[in-house]
């Protein structure tokens, strides 16, 4: 035991001592890679590695080869800071993370302080999925870039879609009982009131986070309220079990969700999700663009994961474009080049807004269907596009007052 511990410690110290080779630029993914939440981090890691190959074949990042390093944080903010320090010590200047606004909050604070205390050794934090709106509003930071629409933007797009759907008269809100769930509920009520004052909110439920095994009582409440539509910010098992209970109960109201297509949901729901579960996201499962279809097929074959995180591809492409423009991989120069940068994607033009480092992009409402050309998770189910919400209808003003380095 002691001997293996000793070799283990020496090995870890040796690892720490080696810095990156000159001609690579490393991007560290700090996300859950083991344990119960690994299903959220692993696909992102595989996606990044898959797309890094394409970037490297096209000349890399400002001429340097991009290397993806996975660091396991177990979705714990404190552990994430240890992993961040490990990344910084091995010479990594770019980190990315997405799962959990608690972790994102810790990383924004730590990266900001590190850059303030270590001028010349700056680190950039590229956020691909932590959606707390405060990160690009009152807490905005020059060192943070968000490549996902924030929670309020998603709700803006979602309510725009609902507002145009005149059949919907009664809406039910069901969310997890913690800060994110409450924020979703509040945004939904405010935005619906503004866009469609005639819509009645017939229910506003909060259930314990990740503890409910049987949603039937909630579903029966939704049924008896006569709701035409349900809005939910649930993720993980809370969305799967909720929709499953609705299907078994025979509730036909559609579920408008943030995370209805995240990994595992399609497999677990199967037929029960068809025409019942909708998702607002920056992409969908039709893959009309042959280039995207090719990536989906190849990535599933190579890694066993779907090409789900279009925003990770957007992130790497923008990283490359900014670094090429700056002619350097120095984080300060890349960050300055990234501000206001536009990129032509398969969905049209997206732009990284300079004022708050929040990406501006079109969003899509999609619904789960059977017999899709490109099925998700090896099934025939995937999410079919029902509406496109333009960039102008997604965007929201910001309260950010960015402090930039000289």
């Amino acid at each position, binding site marked *: *035991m002691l*001997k*293996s*511990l000793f070799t*283990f*410690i020496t*090995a*870890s*110290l040796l*690892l*720490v*001592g080696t810095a990156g080779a000159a001609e690579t630029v490393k991007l560290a993914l700090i996300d859950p*890679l*083991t*344990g119960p939440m*690994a299903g959220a981090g692993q696909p992102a890691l*595989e996606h990044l590695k898959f797309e890094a190959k394409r970037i490297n074949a096209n000349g890399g990042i400002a001429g340097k080869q991009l290397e993806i390093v996975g*660091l*396991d944080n*177990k979705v*714990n*903010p*404190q*552990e994430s*800071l*240890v*992993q961040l*320090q*490990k990344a*910084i*010590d*091995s010479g990594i200047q770019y980190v990315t993370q997405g799962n*959990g*606004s*608690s972790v*994102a*909050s*810790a990383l924004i*604070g*730590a990266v900001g*302080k590190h850059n303030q*205390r*270590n001028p010349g050794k700056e680190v950039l934090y590229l956020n691909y999925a932590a959606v*707390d709106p*405060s990160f690009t509003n009152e807490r905005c930071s020059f060192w943070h870039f968000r490549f996902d629409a924030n929670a309020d933007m998603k709700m803006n797009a979602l309510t725009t879609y609902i507002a145009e759907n005149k059949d919907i008269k009664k809406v039910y809100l069901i969310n997890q*009982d*913690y*800060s*994110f769930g409450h924020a979703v509920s509040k945004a939904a009520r405010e935005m619906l009131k503004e866009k469609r004052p005639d819509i009645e909110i017939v229910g506003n439920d909060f259930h*314990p*986070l990740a503890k409910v095994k049987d949603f039937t009582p909630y579903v029966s409440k939704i049924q008896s309220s006569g709701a035409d539509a349900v809005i939910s910010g649930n993720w993980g098992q809370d969305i799967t079990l909720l929709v499953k209970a609705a299907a078994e109960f025979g509730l036909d109201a559609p579920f408008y969700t943030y995370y209805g297509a995240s990994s595992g949901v399609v497999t677990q729901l199967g037929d029960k999700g068809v025409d019942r579960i909708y998702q607002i996201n920056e992409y969908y499962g039709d893959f009309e663009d042959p280039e995207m279809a090719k990536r989906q097929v190849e990535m599933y074959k190579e*890694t*066993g994961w779907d090409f789900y995180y279009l925003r990770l591809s957007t992130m790497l492409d923008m990283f490359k474009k900014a670094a090429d423009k700056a002619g350097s991989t120095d984080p300060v120069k890349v960050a300055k080049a990234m501000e206001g940068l536009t990129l032509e994607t398969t969905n049209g033009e997206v732009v990284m807004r300079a004022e708050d480092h929040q990406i501006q992009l079109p969003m899509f409402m999609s619904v789960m269907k059977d017999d899709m050309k490109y099925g998700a998770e090896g099934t025939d189910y995937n999410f079919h596009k029902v509406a496109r919400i333009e960039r102008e209808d997604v965007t929201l003003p910001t309260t950010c007052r960015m402090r930039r380095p000289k």
Partner: protein
Amino acid sequence: MSQDMSVPMQPSKSRTSLRGLVPWVVFAAVLLLLPVVFQGNSTAFTLLNVIGINIVFALSYNMLLGQGGMLSFGHAVFFGLGSYAAMHAMIAIDDASYAGEGFWAHVPVVGMPVIGMIAGGLVALVLGWPFCRRAGTAFAMITLGLGEMVAAAGQMFPSLFGGEAGIYGNRMVGPQWFGLELAQSDDVYWFMAFWTFVAVFAMWAFTRTPLGRMSNAVRDNPDRLQFIGYPPRNIRFMIFIASGSFGGLAGGMAAVNYEIITPEALGLIPSGLALLMAAVGGLGVFYGPIMGAIVVTLMNSMLSDYTDASILYVGLVFLSIVMFAPRGLGGGIEQVRVAWREGDLARRLPGWLSGALAVGLIIVGMVVLVEMLFQATHGDDEFAQVLGMEFDAAALWGWLTAAVLVVLGAVIKRATNKLREDQA
């Protein structure tokens, strides 16, 4: 469980002699030497700082379980609330030092663990009384409920707990003491070393007080204690408060180290971590949880770089310690030390060494097996790499090697069982 794991504390034969000082001098020397060894390596300092926090956390937990016989599943409540109190104080210092006046403008960040300690103690004082009537299962269930309740409340009151994003502060504010700027992790190290030393010493001193002795008595035989006129509930309550205070102290150290605290820190996972560290290190030996904290922290932060199955290994280590070495790492060392003192070591060593060899072989075999299984089911490499060697999951010889290692270990263990039994 606690009674199987525990060994009665060895009474010190020379309370006043200098010999009792030796471990403390060594401890202080190690703390002073570590920065020289790891100079310029911030990751090492970051890990050392986390280890320092975990040492205090695990030791404070062991005051309850190892010394008082109270199995708690809610110890992170004190850690987390102490951390929240310290963080709110740090924010107050930040605000006050802008204004340049007020009480908080004169409080140094170095003193935050004291704030955490007071908060942890107060929480235990307020909540503890109804819990301490019974030890055992009832106590375990109540603390489990307490932990869940506080963790849920943490998510529900964003003004106090900051919601999912938590609350965050800056440690580089207020008056500086001892020239500690607290900018980098190697600077923070001195802060950690100081408080770790103070807390460890204070907790050791606690075991020497009459109350500390009584806590062992309440663990071993509460009925007799009641009979001779000490109500066990009062004693448990006092241990609970002391343990909560030191848990809060660890939380105050964490607030300065991480500069952020989120409601997750109050939950079941960090409470389980305390139990894990204490049990791996050994509940019956004072320094056991220190070793447990070091091993578990390193496994948590480093092991996942080498294998995707890291959590499985943490679980296996816990399982095998509970099953095969219920006295933990510290208990093992203590056994060797006692044998050496009694001149028994030479006679016992063959049995122990052969046992260690057998366990080592079984472990390597199991690791090869687990890694190959992992690669065969959903790995991205073709080979499982163990100790610099590559094992091909598709070929038979890899599986054979693993099986041979495990069988060999088991055979050696069986063959040498007699060596250990005779002298036990």
